């Protein structure tokens, strides 16, 4: 009964916030949006900062939201169909074995510093990418086997690979292969992290580490994607990305009208936000779902019984219903269901405690005095390294910890700062990693799990490598899907990775913000976005 006064006080506080939210334009939600109005500043609160403003060197969604707006890409991917559409390139061709691509570029496009975006500029970008350090894993993966580019004419460039590379084309639509000016490309990795010049609809105005990234509209923008809904300059004057690590503060700021949009919505935020008239657009991220992947060169990772038991011990449905937003789905394959080439593996990814226990018993891991299983005097204590780049990570991992403890696996959670992520992946100093990777192409499997690439997880050479290389060379979609399905089965049967939950991006967007669109990788494009003025 003593709860009541508290609740009433809380309701009063929330109510006040709600009224403030309405003052900022809640009423506009009901009315039709009308024609786009230019002007205004979009204030966007994100939870983390990767410490870099070079789109080619970031991988965290929180950074990509802002940096995607700085650069244009050669192609654009239709979020509905997954088809590639023209952007900077008006057309492209490839040779039959997918080792050589020729792009025809739009003419007259310039970077924001006035230098022309021509074939030479694209070549400068591609030539530089293989030399990027650990932060450049994504674009380096897209350019796997890169031999060189040939400038055929100022608007024509030929890109050659020493092996088939089908996924390159989808790669050109991502922020990672967004084109920056040759002068920026020539700078050192760290210098690029402080400032880059692109050809995008917005230019970098200021960057304060762990505080804000401010972009302003570029006047005279001529190169929107063919998927954009208008031409000419972007509608918004400025984009202010604020780094707000506290999820409660982000939600409160949005309800109070202090910001116009926020990322990283948690399950607990949905009801208060929806009640305040906030839009909650959601899209399932393609690519690798959130999951646990072992370092296969370490004793725990090398033991297939442990990997299999861990997978059976996890109750994915409970994780989703307890922690994630309503639009989220449990993982049913090592690839998210919105990725081209996805094939359901849910038969192998069920929850069965008895089976998990049986697998461990058979492998000689027997329950010890405190319930944790022991083999040869060594307790089954697995250290899982994770990064706090999503508010859902901690509750998810605590829940997984509880679930696997029931079968005698002691999962220890080791949190590291997100800025250390690439260093840890490169050094291989982990037993197991928790994470995901967003990409709208199944080749993400090759760049993550082939023993011939960066090989973060220290996979041994195996027939899997051949399958991964095979799909990268198959330009026929059906054939490629069949190969990808084989890969997924191989990964799942051997429990080489243990997918848990598909990431679903849910943003909170104020009612007066219109035209905020997800791209094929569930990141955002703000070129068509506009705010109705109060």
């Amino acid at each position, binding site marked *: 009964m003593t709860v009541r006064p508290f*609740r009433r006080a*809380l309701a009063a506080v929330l109510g006040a916030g709600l009224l403030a939210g309405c003052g900022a334009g809640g009423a506009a939600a009901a009315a039709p949006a009308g024609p786009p109005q230019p002007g205004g500043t979009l204030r966007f609160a994100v939870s983390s900062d990767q410490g870099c403003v070079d789109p080619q060197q970031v991988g965290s969604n929180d950074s990509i939201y802002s940096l995607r707006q700085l650069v244009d890409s050669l192609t654009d991917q239709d979020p509905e169909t997954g088809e590639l559409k023209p952007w900077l390139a008006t057309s492209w061709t490839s040779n039959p074995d997918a080792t050589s691509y020729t792009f025809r570029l739009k003419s007259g496009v310039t970077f924001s510093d006035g230098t022309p975006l021509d074939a030479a500029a694209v070549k400068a970008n591609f030539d530089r990418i293989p030399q990027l350090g650990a932060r450049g894993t994504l674009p380096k993966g897209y350019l796997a086997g890169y031999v060189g580019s040939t400038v055929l004419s100022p608007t024509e460039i030929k890109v050659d690979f020493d092996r088939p590379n089908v996924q390159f084309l989808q790669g050109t639509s991502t922020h990672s292969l967004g084109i920056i000016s040759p002068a920026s490309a020539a700078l050192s990795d760290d210098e690029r992290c402080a400032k880059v010049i692109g050809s995008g609809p917005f230019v970098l105005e200021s960057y304060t580490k762990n505080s804000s990234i401010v972009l302003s509209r570029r006047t005279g923008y001529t190169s929107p994607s063919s998927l954009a809904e208008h031409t000419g300059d972007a509608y918004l004057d400025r984009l202010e990305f604020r780094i707000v690590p506290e999820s*409660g503060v982000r939600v409160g700021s949005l309800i109070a009208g202090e910001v116009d949009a926020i990322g990283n919505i948690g399950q*607990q935020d949905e009801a*208060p936000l929806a009640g305040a008239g906030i839009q909650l657009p959601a899209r399932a991220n393609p690519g690798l779902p959130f999951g646990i992947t072992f370092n296969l060169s370490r004793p725990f990772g090398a033991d297939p019984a442990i990997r299999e038991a861990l997978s059976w011990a996890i109750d994915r449905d409970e994780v989703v219903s307890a922690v994630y937003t309503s639009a989220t789905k449990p993982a049913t394959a090592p690839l998210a269901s919105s990725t081209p080439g996805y094939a359901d593996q849910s038969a192998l990814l069920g929850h069965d405690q008895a089976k998990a226990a049986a697998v461990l018993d058979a492998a000689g891991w027997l329950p010890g005095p405190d319930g944790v299983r022991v083999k040869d005097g060594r307790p089954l204590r697995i250290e899982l390294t994770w990064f706090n780049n999503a508010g859902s990570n901690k509750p998810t991992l605590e829940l997984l910890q509880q679930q696997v403890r029931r079968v005698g696996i002691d999962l220890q*959670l080791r949190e590291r700062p997100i800025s250390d992520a690439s260093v840890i992946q490169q050094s291989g100093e982990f037993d197991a990693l928790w994470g995901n990777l967003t990409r709208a192409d199944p080749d993400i499997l090759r760049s993550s799990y082939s023993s011939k690439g960066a090989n973060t997880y220290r996979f041994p050479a195996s027939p899997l490598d051949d399958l991964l290389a095979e799909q990268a060379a198959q330009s026929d979609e059906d054939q490629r899907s069949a190969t990808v399905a084989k890969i997924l089965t191989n990964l799942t049967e051997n429990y080489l990775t243990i997918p848990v939950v598909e990431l679903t991006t849910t943003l909170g967007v104020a009612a007066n913000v219109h035209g905020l669109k997800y791209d094929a990788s569930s990141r955002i494009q703000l070129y068509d976005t506009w705010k109705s003025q109060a």
Partner: protein
Amino acid sequence: MTELLERPQSALPEPVPVQVTRPDRGKLLRFLGHRPGLVLSLLMVAFVLVAAFAPGLLAPGDPGVGDTAERLQPPSPAHIFGTDYLGRDVWTRVVHGASLSLQATVIAVAVALVIGGLIGLLAGFVRGWLDDLLMRVVDVLLAIPAVLLSLALITALGYGTVKVAIAVGVASVASFARVMRAETLRVRQATYVEAAYAVGTRWYVTLWRHVLPNAAGPVAVLAVLEFGLAILAVSALSFLGYGAPPPAPEWGSLVAEGRNYLAVAWWLCALPGLTIAATVLAVNRISRALDGEWRRFR
């Protein structure tokens, strides 16, 4: 007998060797009867101690296991502190967290007391260049804000409850050193210390037998006071995520976990936070009582 403990209020008090007195029961009851706050504080500390040493008595459940179907339940008779985002009972987590938080606090105070006490004792007893040297080191420690110093130490030491405790302890060495030095300076001029010198007692025996026991009183009171501050500092560091890894229910991390749910579940932050506040207030009240309140009471 109590008269012996009475220090004259004159400007230059002559320290008297510590004597043990038997408390008078009637006086004790009257003393406590006039101080309900102190009684509450004693009860609170007793409660925290029980929670730290026998958490099972107060909360028989497992603090690390919850039922997700019952998550974010408000306080009710079944869950008096409510449940958290995984359905774990917050009361159980607070009770079981007491031992972790208290362990860290005790280590922190012990580190500060031992290191600070020794530095002060040496500086005050030896004087001269050693005093100058040690006090300049203490000056440097005092010049750096305590939390900042703790954070710097944590970065060097790594994460974990014991490391947090050491970082907090080192950061409060300076105040112990200062108080201990002042007391030592006072005591070493006392007649009985001079007498000890005069009969040829070795210096370390004098230090150990005569100076230390008589200079330790104010430092002991400071230790109790510091206990409250250390609970806060340890909680602050574990709030920031430097403490034990999840799911360990350290008090600070309990508050930290709850802040994402503030709008929908106030009890996640409020109740562990109130527990921390109540413990700190209780300890402060007790340290005030130890600082001569009993002596002044008639």
